[in-house]
């Protein structure tokens, strides 16, 4: 039994309109192991959008499978979906290294790839592709917004820290692209590190006025807990990933007051977002994360394109995607020349809503922000 999460009937009727061509979607995401929380949110956000729009989604079928966070397995599943299931569109991947493994192969075989998360810089720059659409962000974006916020709010001496791997160096470079003040310290930690006592002692000794850190997943949870216990009071700034809904419950009150940057927030004031947050809570009994929001937008983008053009007509379908005529939960959304978003980026603060920790927008870091790699992309 293939896990077919069908959304509505697939109409094979010959009388159907040309635009009602069935679209088969392969959703590859992380549903097991330590990173499963993010993958579950992506899948749930994606499926929710299809469920809420039965008319638009009636010709869309989804096959979902677990990549276990292994690039080789993700490639194998992508091959299977393309060769056996004959999917037209792939989506779902959380991690940059898995995206780098799957995306170039998929678009080389003339499939579409819509990214609900992960935007490694090569795919935004010289390896950009007309069939690859990133509906989330370019990897540097949230970090750039944090740098911009630090600059705007007059911080003078920031301590910056990230794990020692490409996403980590990209993060600190993105931050430094907009923050021009002095650095109290620049530290790279080991990927997967769990104890941060030594780094916290360095922070205390550095005399920093703020700490910017990017530590995804369990690393960030561990750091913030230990930081709070150490009693070092220097304010924390992070990209949205460090303080999003998937980790806030585990960090608990130490997260309160932390500033973080993202393209979306549950309190973002527009009708599409209100509907999304309400329906997500109703369907899954928890607040959505930014990953769920991005996946929800991805599905709605797909619906908007599939009602306008047939997926078999690649050129028309591409144009329909590029037009991005859907109601984004981020308010406004459009694609840059390199098929990456031009969007607003917000500064959020962790607050308590009743008993639940969540985020609230306190400022806008960028309006209509693109990315630094678009000019390296050959598409104009």
């Amino acid at each position, binding site marked *: 039994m293939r896990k077919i999460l069908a959304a509505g009937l697939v109409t094979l009727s010959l009388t159907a309109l040309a635009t009602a061509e069935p679209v088969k979607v392969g959703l590859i995401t992380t549903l097991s192991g330590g990173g499963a929380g993010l993958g579950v949110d992506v899948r749930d956000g994606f499926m929710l959008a299809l469920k809420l729009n039965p008319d638009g989604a009636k010709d869309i079928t989804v096959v979902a499978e677990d990549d276990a966070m292994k690039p080789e397995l993700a490639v194998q599943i992508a091959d299977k979906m393309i*060769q*056996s299931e004959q999917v037209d569109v792939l989506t779902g991947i959380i991690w940059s290294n898995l995206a*780098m*493994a799957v995306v170039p192969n998929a678009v*080389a075989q003339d499939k579409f790839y819509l990214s609900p998360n992960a935007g490694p810089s090569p795919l935004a720059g010289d390896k950009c592709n007309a069939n690859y659409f990133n509906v989330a962000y370019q990897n540097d974006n949230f970090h750039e917004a944090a740098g911009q916020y630090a600059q705007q709010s007059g911080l003078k001496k920031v301590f910056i820290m990230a794990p020692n*791997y490409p996403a980590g160096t990209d993060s600190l470079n993105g931050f430094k692209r907009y923050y021009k003040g002095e650095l109290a310290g620049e530290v790279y930690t080991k990927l997967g590190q769990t104890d941060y006592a030594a780094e916290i002692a360095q922070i205390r000794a550095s005399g920093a006025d703020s700490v910017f850190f990017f530590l995804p997943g369990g690393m960030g949870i561990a750091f913030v807990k230990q930081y709070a216990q150490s009693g070092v009071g220097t304010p924390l700034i992070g990209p949205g990933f460090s303080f999003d809904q998937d980790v806030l419950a585990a960090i608990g009150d130490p997260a309160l007051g932390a500033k973080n940057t993202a393209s979306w927030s549950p309190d973002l004031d527009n009708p599409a977002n209100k509907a999304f947050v309400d329906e997500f809570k109703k369907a899954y009994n928890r607040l959505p994360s930014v990953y769920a929001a991005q996946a929800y937008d991805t599905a709605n983008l797909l619906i908007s394109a599939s009602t306008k053009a047939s997926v078999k007509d690649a050129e028309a379908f591409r144009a329909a995607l590029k037009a991005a005529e859907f109601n984004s939960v981020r308010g406004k959304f459009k694609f840059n020349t390199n098929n990456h978003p031009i969007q607003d980026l917000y500064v959020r603060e962790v607050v308590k809503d009743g008993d639940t920790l969540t985020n609230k927008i306190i400022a806008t870091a960028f309006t209509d922000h693109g990315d630094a790699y678009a000019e390296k992309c050959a598409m104009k």
Partner: protein
Amino acid sequence: MTRENVVSIVLLCGLLILPFVAQAAGYPFYMTLATRMAILAVAAVGLNIALGLGGLVSFGHAAFFGIGGYAAGVIASHAMNGEHLLGFAVPASMPVAWLIGMLAAGLVAIVTGLISLRTSGVYFIMITLAFAQMIYYFAISWPAYGGEDGLSIAMRNSFPGANTARPSDLFLVSFAILLVVLLFFWRLRDSRFGAALQAARQNEGRVAAVGIEPFPIRLVAFVLSAMITAVAGAMYAELNRFVSPSMLSWTMSGELIVLIILGGVGRVVGPVAGAFVFVVLEYWLGGLTERWQFFLGLMLLAIVLFSPGGLMGLLAGKARHD
């Protein structure tokens, strides 16, 4: 003909014929799956020289697998960008990638082997892991070839007379390597060198008493084993058109060991049987449920508890060499 030989021939013929039957019947993906099986089997045959014949349980063979993978990836990317590698214009060809991978893995194996082989038992398991972890952390943080993000291969390296972009050609190349490597393993096992290697595993004291030094024999076996696994790594990168540090991770080393134990330690086609079952289970269960790892674990446990000689033990009876 012994029962083991019959089982071996049936297995190999099945692996060769089934993907073509499936392709003709409109299931082209099984070709990719069969290629994966063949390549993992090559890697495991390589490890089987050290582990099965020499009793050297290397928990770091992912290092050699990954080195081979990076050899293929680096050559492809340099050729793609028209850049020289260390001052040479290296052709984007698979045999060249294998050669470079084997050389690099062989060198690393000599250095690490000289140190590791002074230890034995669990200490050997862990010191090989330590060396692999060093290479893993180096690969993650070294930015030149993508670090943790890995390196995509836009166009596969070429092989004379084959179109490597076509799945069936890639499969045939992989299968041919598997046959060569199996033949090599079989001849090696029954050679004087192989006899000495196995004798050193079974009774070190006796071997030393008849004037054979076990250390150099083990070192040669370890290096040969690393070089074969590197070729498999190069092919694995070609198959995925991608190489990343996850090929170097300790879980990969663990999986290679699992393939061998599953199939039957020291058996010629044991790794083939192990790769076959592991890939089928992973594929089939993964399509069935997102909890596939749970059921994979249960099945592996059942095999180890109820079939001590691995699958070959189950199918072909007790091994002749035990």
